[in-house]
């Protein structure tokens, strides 16, 4: 329910509809970590402590 429902009712009908739609279509934010982080390549020689 829009916070300022009363204000919206005062606006021209078209704008109010758009405002409402925008508010309700905002889903919970999805955190997607950059895909690079899912796979990381390291050199088999890149570990200290091997000859």
């Amino acid at each position, binding site marked *: 329910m829009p916070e300022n429902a009363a204000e919206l009712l005062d606006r021209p009908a078209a704008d109010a509809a758009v405002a409402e739609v925008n508010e309700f279509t905002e889903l919970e934010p999805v955190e*997607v970590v950059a895909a690079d982080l899912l796979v990381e390549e390291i050199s*088999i020689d890149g*570990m*200290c402590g*091997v*000859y």
Partner: protein
Amino acid sequence: MTVTAAPLTTVFQSGLDAPICLTWELTYACNLSCVHCLSSSGRRDPAELTTDECKRVIDEFERMQVFYVNIGGGEPTVRPDFWELVDYATAHHVGVKFSTNGLRITPEVARRLAGSNYIDVQISLDGATAEVNDAVRGRGSFEMATRAMRNLADAGFAGFKISVVMTRHNVAQLDAFKAVADSFGAQLRITRLRPSGRGADVWDELHPTASQQRVLYDWLVAHGENVLTGDSFFHLAGYGQELPGLNMCGAGRVVCLIDPVGDVYACPFAIHEEFLAGNVRAPGGFAAVWRGSDLFAGLRRPQSGGACASCSAFEACQGGCMAAKFFTGLPLDGPDPECVRGFGEAALATADFARRPSGDHSHRGRPAAARGPVPVTIGPRPDHGTVVRDTVVRDVPDRACDQSPLAGFTP
């Protein structure tokens, strides 16, 4: 819903169920007497793992899914069972890279190696010229290594490694080393000199100066794209840009050392009781040591950083190399002796006496490498025929290398 991923080093610093790779020194015997040898090698130890014991260790690697093992020594190829063990490893899904001074890399051996996908070779070289190299590794060693490299190249072995320990006397040869590697179709690898083994004796005069260290770092940043480092210069991350690699100490976390008598150390540069985690001959073998030793558990706990924690470079350099600090007598929770901010140098002025390595398998009466060939005691070992740790000490012709390091070597 979130897609999460932990930073890699955070995960690795708390340890894994098995090493990713590790170093396995197969023997302390060596035909050379390099002045900086990190394992103080030369003479075989009477209690070295038998062929069967080695195979049991390889079986463990297979079970633990260790991806590859870096076999070294001493000079690993002087073991009569060397090729048998390499074949056994690769047949059991364990990749092998072995480090050698080139002693046994004949054209025939080179052809055999070139045909295998699971074996990699690393030739040790510490000078781009015989003059610089032989001063550290002994007269004739440059020629021997060059011959081995020629044989590998001629056999079509592309991408074998040339491994260089950076010293005060070869920093100026970085471009030349790259050229040598390119000329053989090999890949250059440069690594850090640590004050370990015989390195403790020569570290003061051989380790790169502070300004040389900067040269080295700049060179790696500018030209090091195809140059391997074994992540051994992570202490230089304090200069700014991190070099490729995990940029952390892998000891006891993702790597470790198994020495010729089965002792397990955190790292090949830390052969000292302080870093001894156990022995593969004990019940539970290598796996039990890797997973259960108190030493490794301690290394896998979050490290505080101690005196270094307040330095702005600490995040990058992580306080540097544990072994370098230990053998120069510095506290482990303080700066690396080669700290790029100069804090190590300052600390050295008031450091405890430098610690000695725990063992010494050096050839007796060894001269400095520059003074010529290594004199060797000829004749049966005093303990020939005795039983040491369930192994009969044998001094037979087929192990003549114990008597003369150059036995069997045809120039």
